[in-house]
């Protein structure tokens, strides 16, 4: 089997995903366009050498519809021979793109791939694409549909995480993110979003608030309590029979932020990299994806990570740093407990609670953050993982070269 290497990664800053967010006025194609141009310029890339572009996008409707990957390639003036595919594995889509790219390269069928994702959540809100899982009552009922937040609160209840526990985790995320920003730790990967005049629209993650405290969070109302009481709690409790009540602890301050953003990663084989003068930064050791119980939905991280470790022939102790997507505070806390790992190795520069979770892009973003941090600390191996809608998990292990 061939090896797949990461040559470069770029991402946009994440803009608040509301109409007063800075990236609301930027089309998702333009978000990607900025990054395609950056990737081309940073690597003096002959774009005709790219075999495929895989873009994750969870809400591929409207401006994000009709295969935004191919649209953005052409918009960016890349060679016409570069194809593109858009895929969705819900919140894992960004990492799914990376994993598909890695597998394409490993299989030997293709040699150079751009993987990434995009989501303009302010313009095309979550759920704009519908889906039988939620909207078809027969299927909804059969699958035991409940929103992610119910699953997160269910995890917290099962694991005994209190409101204070999850809020403390959120404060950690904000503080680490603020510190990382102040130290310029994202500078390598972060490419400011510019308009067609070259004027900067946004050059930093917009939702970071280093001043957040558990006190300031304590006033926020639990987001999922009302809908839980209306019926979702009972759907969950029919499956989790040992639990008497769901403790609704998640709210806007300890859940991932709704933001706009995009990311790209350049992945390829060693010979191709050599031919194009690209320097490999890391080898993709293994990739994994699993399915898990869909109502609680968000417990797929540990099994996915374990599967990736098995494939790589590694043990959890071999991993120097983790990036686990902060979909909700309880998700990461549960994963850390399940994997029996040290929290000090996890999300050391904050996560989606502070910086937001642009659904289709996040997986790619956290893997890039992981690689930057491995390089900064001069460590070797990292694992990125996300929980995924409808009960799935994904993981990727990289090793610096």
């Amino acid at each position, binding site marked *: 089997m061939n090896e797949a290497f990461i040559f470069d990664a770029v991402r946009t800053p994440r803009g608040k995903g509301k*109409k*007063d967010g800075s990236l*609301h*006025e930027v*089309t998702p194609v333009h978000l990607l366009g900025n990054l395609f141009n950056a990737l081309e310029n940073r690597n003096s890339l002959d774009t005709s050498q790219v075999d495929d572009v895989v873009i994750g996008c969870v809400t591929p409707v*409207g*401006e994000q519809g009709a295969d935004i990957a191919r649209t953005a390639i052409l918009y960016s003036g890349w060679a016409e021979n570069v194809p593109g595919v858009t895929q969705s594995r819900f919140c894992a889509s960004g990492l799914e793109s990376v994993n598909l790219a890695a597998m394409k390269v490993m299989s030997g069928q293709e040699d150079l791939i751009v993987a990434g994702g995009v989501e303009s959540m302010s*313009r095309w809100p979550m759920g704009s694409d519908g889906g039988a899982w939620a909207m078809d009552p027969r299927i909804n009922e059969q699958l035991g549909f409940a929103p992610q937040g119910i699953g997160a609160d269910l995890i917290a209840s099962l694991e005994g995480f209190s409101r204070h526990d999850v809020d403390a985790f959120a404060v950690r995320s904000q503080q680490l993110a603020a510190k990382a920003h102040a130290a310029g730790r994202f500078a390598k990967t972060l490419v400011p979003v510019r*308009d*067609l*005049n*070259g*004027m900067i629209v946004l050059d930093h993650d917009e939702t970071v608030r280093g001043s957040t405290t558990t006190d300031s969070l304590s006033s926020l109302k639990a987001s999922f309590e009302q809908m839980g009481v209306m019926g979702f709690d009972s759907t969950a409790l029919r499956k989790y029979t040992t639990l008497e009540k769901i403790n609704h602890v998640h709210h806007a301050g300890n859940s991932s932020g709704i933001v706009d953003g995009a990311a790209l990663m350049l992945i390829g084989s060693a010979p191709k990299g050599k031919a194009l003068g690209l320097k490999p930064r890391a080898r993709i050791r293994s990739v994994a994806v699993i399915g898990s119980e869909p109502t609680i939905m968000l417990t797929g991280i540990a099994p996915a990570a374990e599967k990736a470790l098995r494939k790589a022939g590694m043990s959890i102790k071999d991993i120097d740093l983790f990036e686990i997507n902060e979909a909700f505070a309880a998700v990461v806390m549960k994963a850390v407990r399940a994997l029996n790992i040290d929290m000090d190795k996890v999300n050391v520069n904050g996560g989606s609670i502070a910086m937001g979770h642009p659904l289709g892009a996040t997986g790619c973003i956290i893997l890039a953050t992981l690689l930057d941090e491995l390089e900064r600390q001069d460590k070797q191996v990292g694992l990125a993982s996300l929980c995924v809608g409808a009960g799935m998990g994904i993981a990727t292990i990289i090793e610096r070269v």
Partner: protein
Amino acid sequence: MSAVQMTVDADGIATLTMDLVDRPMNVLNEALMAPFADYIAKIEADAAIKGVILTSAKREFLAGADIDMVFGITDPKLAFEVAERLKQMLRRLELCGRPVVAALNGTALGGGLEVALACHWRVAINDPKAKFGLPEVKLGLLPGGGGTQRLPRMIGIQASLPLMLEGKELNVEAAKQQGIINELAADKAEMLAKAKSWCLANPKPVQPWDDKKFKWPGGDARHPAVVQVFAIAPSMAGAKTQGNYPAATNIMSCVYEGGIVDFESGCRIESRYFANLVVSQVSKNMIGTLWFQLNSINKGKSRPEGFPKSKVQKLGILGAGMMGAGIAYVSAKVGIECVLLDSTIEAAEKGKAYSAGLLDKAIKKGRETPAGKGVFLDRIKATTDYADLAGCDLVIEAVFEDRAIKADVTKKTEAVIPATATFASNTSTLPITGLATASLRPEQFIGLHFFSPVDKMPLVEIIIGEKTSKATLAKGFDYVQQIKKTPIVVNDSRGFYTSRSFATYVMEGMALLQEGQHPRSIEMAGLKAGMPVGPLALQDEVSLSLSVHVMEQTKKDLAAEGKPYVGHPSEPLILKMCKELNRPGKKAGKGFYDYPEAGTKGEKKLWPELTTVFPLKEQLSQQELVERMMFAQANEAARCFEENVVMTVADANIGSIFGWGFAPHQGGALQYINAYGVSKFVARAEALAVQYGPRFKPAAILVKMAGEGKRFE
């Protein structure tokens, strides 16, 4: 005095009256915006003010932005800030918490209409001469004062797009019908009264887009019907613009993207696209030429000073063919008494009937009345009698391009017209100085070169012969302005300025065909260059036989003058088409194209044998074809400037656009060189000369300018 005055009446209704000192019209310049903003602040702070009426003391309400200021901006950030500042001011006005009414006493265009759109209600005097619209696109710009956001939210995306993309100027009725104006008033007093009573009846108005329940009329940009509109809109625009006008694209982007986001974000998006256009080469080209240079021409820059403005009362026209008939029409239209003379009364009447035909069309469109037609036609006397020319101030001959015939009619005419009258020739090719030798008064002899069709083409090329006096030039200039056309003034030369430069376009197209380029690719490249018609189709219109005639005449003339004749590589092809293949052009139904028989429907088609007769060789890129055709024209225009045939940059640029349809987005034939960069142009022309022949050698003046780092100013 401040450019804005405010009075407050007993009911607390404030009237803001715009009146820029020392300017004929109100424009959104600093002098107006500063006091405007101050008054908005005062209104916000004064609870006693219950409503605001915005009006003007000029004939027009507000003519638009300050083009001088916009033209000077080269930094997109500054352009962005300028747009944002205006928008913030208007935003404060519409959010000031009390009714604001635009009392439109007259024309409101561009920024002027945008100000009105930011008011809660618009009442206009029912003045058929007033115009309303967003014509920024015509100068390569877009409405940057919120117009691309307010108008679609007011009348719908589908209705607003053409208004902005075509820059349509609506009369007051049409503006009311489109929903841009809410109410009409008979006069100023009624307008102000209606404005006031609306204020009193609507103490807390909210703009539709600030209403939480706002629904886009016809749907926002996500609506399936609107999605369909945007799917085809770029193709519809592109069919006209060939992608040469970024303003069209940017306007569509403003409306589309604005239709996805909230009003405030939409406004910022608009400022970004506005800034992009302000600093674009295309807008600089268009504003420089179609605004500043055109204005300087209209103000009489090329008219000699010191001669009182003259007016033609009675005009004689010799020859009632296409040109003569058209000249009669445009002259009678402005009230000039015309004598239309031809050798037979049938021919003369046929010339007069041309006006009748145009008037009938105008009646059908409601722009003329049968009575008006009668009065109009009474001004044109069709005749064969030279005696009818008695009393003419000006006579224009438009007879066959033959020296002997022209000399003959000149003599016959001068025998009857007053000694003070001006005699003009509408020749397009024959030197005026030579024709003037037939005249008793060569100092009163001048060239007035009209373009066909006369009623549509906006330009007249005035040619000064060796002996033409300044007084005669002034008279000719005044006449051209009297018939509402744009005059450019050129010196006598073979083909003058326009015909000579225009010919290079067509000849280059034919040279390309001769070289084995695909005929359709040549035509396409002509269109992509921004020319209205491909070179081969144009040559068919002009007719190949006429070109052969001119070619032979030129050869003869030069031989007589003892000068060498330099041929063009297209000549063998013209001769072959005309003489060997008997395809002389459109009139004969066959040239480069096959034409449907007269009276039958159908489209012209490129003659399929062309690629057999002129076998295809290796194909050049479209860009190469475009550059060859543009360089040929621009270089020839530069030579004309060098030889003093055309004397001002303004005349050269405007003459090229209005005369032969040179790409308007390039700002004219000399501006093309400026925009390309004079040094770069010289280098490229030299390379073309090496590759394709000495005709591309850069004009000496360009080499000199490149050396001195100068450009056409």
